[in-house]
């Protein structure tokens, strides 16, 4: 259905926005038999939000007139960097200006039409270029809502000419480091290899390192005593250790397995042992052998 017939079927109020009459029926399209993708019968008419730019609208932007307008615009704004938001805002300003008839100036129609035709890709822009004010109003109303969508289209078309950074800049795809299981294992192996190599170097420097480490194994060396207690029968009880590692007791140079958190507890244990032995001596039916 041609644009001219559509507008004739609408009343003045309906012409303010590109809408289809209630009785409008889509033309049947034979997809299978078509050599090329047929044009959508409702292309160019707003349906829903601004993102729902119809395929027909996209095709309208590829027309020679629009391409020419784009080239003019590119030459005019060569070297400038326009963001898509700026382009969309421009389209909206033009559309808003067009709706207010007082602001419409004859001299700006052609120029505005080029911009609209190039930026918004709207039908109204092309109509304005031909001096069709009504068509411009209808087209810009549709184009204002499609300004953002058109800006995305412009990202692709104007990107090499205007500014890669601002318009449609595609950030270089940085392949995210895909962490795979093999990578983790490789890293662990590298760390382990470094660790083992460090140990081997230390052993080469000090051949007695292994013996020294073995000698420091817990339970073998308790270090010098920090306190010595003598029992009534002359035996010595020694307390070894520190606050960090704990305290251990040795009786007659035989270390006990029990560890004490602090020195007070170790001393208390020794005193209890001495008291026990003292009571055994006084009532010495049985004496501990160990």
């Amino acid at each position, binding site marked *: 259905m041609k644009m001219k017939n559509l507008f004739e079927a609408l009343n003045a109020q309906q012409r303010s926005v590109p809408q289809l009459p209630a009785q409008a029926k889509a033309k049947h399209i034979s997809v299978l038999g078509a050599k090329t993708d047929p044009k959508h019968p409702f292309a160019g008419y707003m349906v829903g939000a601004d993102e729902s730019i119809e395929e027909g609208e996209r095709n309208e932007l590829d027309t020679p007139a629009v391409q020419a307008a784009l080239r003019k615009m590119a030459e005019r704004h060569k070297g400038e960097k326009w963001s898509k938001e700026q382009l969309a805002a421009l389209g909206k300003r033009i559309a808003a200006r067009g709706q207010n008839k007082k602001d419409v100036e004859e001299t700006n129609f052609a120029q505005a039409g080029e911009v609209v035709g190039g930026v918004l890709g709207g039908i109204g822009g092309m109509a304005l270029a031909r001096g069709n004010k009504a068509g411009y109003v209808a087209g810009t109303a549709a184009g204002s809502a499609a300004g953002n969508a058109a800006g995305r289209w412009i990202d692709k078309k104007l990107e090499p000419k205007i500014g890669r950074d601002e318009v449609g800049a595609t950030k270089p795809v940085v392949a995210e480091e895909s962490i795979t299981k093999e990578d983790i294992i490789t890293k662990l192996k590298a760390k382990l290899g470094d660790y083992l190599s460090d140990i081997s170097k230390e052993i080469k420097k000090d051949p007695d390192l292994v013996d020294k480490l073995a000698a420091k194994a817990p339970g073998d060396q308790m270090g010098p005593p920090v306190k010595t207690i003598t029992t009534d029968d002359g035996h010595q009880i020694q307390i070894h250790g520190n606050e960090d590692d704990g305290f251990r007791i040795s009786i007659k140079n035989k270390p006990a397995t029990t560890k004490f958190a602090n020195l007070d507890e170790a001393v208390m244990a020794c005193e209890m042992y001495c008291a026990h032995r003292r009571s055994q001596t006084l009532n010495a*039916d049985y004496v*501990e*052998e*160990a």
Partner: protein
Amino acid sequence: MLSDDLKTLLATEYAMAVKAQFFHWNVEGPDFAQLHEFFGEFYAEINDNAIDRTAEYIRTLDDYTPGSFERFLELSQISGQIKVPRARLMIEELLADNQTMTDLLNQCFASAEQENQQGIANFIAERLDAHGKHGWMLKAFLKDNRA
């Protein structure tokens, strides 16, 4: 079964000898010299006259002889002592163990006669005489001083 009774006897003899030697080492007090010698003769008599012969009689019955601390602990009817008793308590304990040994020897004698093992029965009879003598001496140490 006689061989099983003899195995029990072997382990019990071993435990008694070890305990007597333990007392021989650790006895203290005014009677130390006498008790030290007495306990020494006590365990030496068991080692020389009982342990080896009991083991060989087990072998004559075509059975294997136990020879580890673990097996002796399983079989022995006398328990060990991990503390050091006073001298008098040492004697009292050995006296009680000697009575246990006498009861076991009587059981072994009955088994030997039942299986018509006269040689083993004779051996058991000799051991009964020895432990009878040990009992006598131990009781004498416990008597109040009659001097």
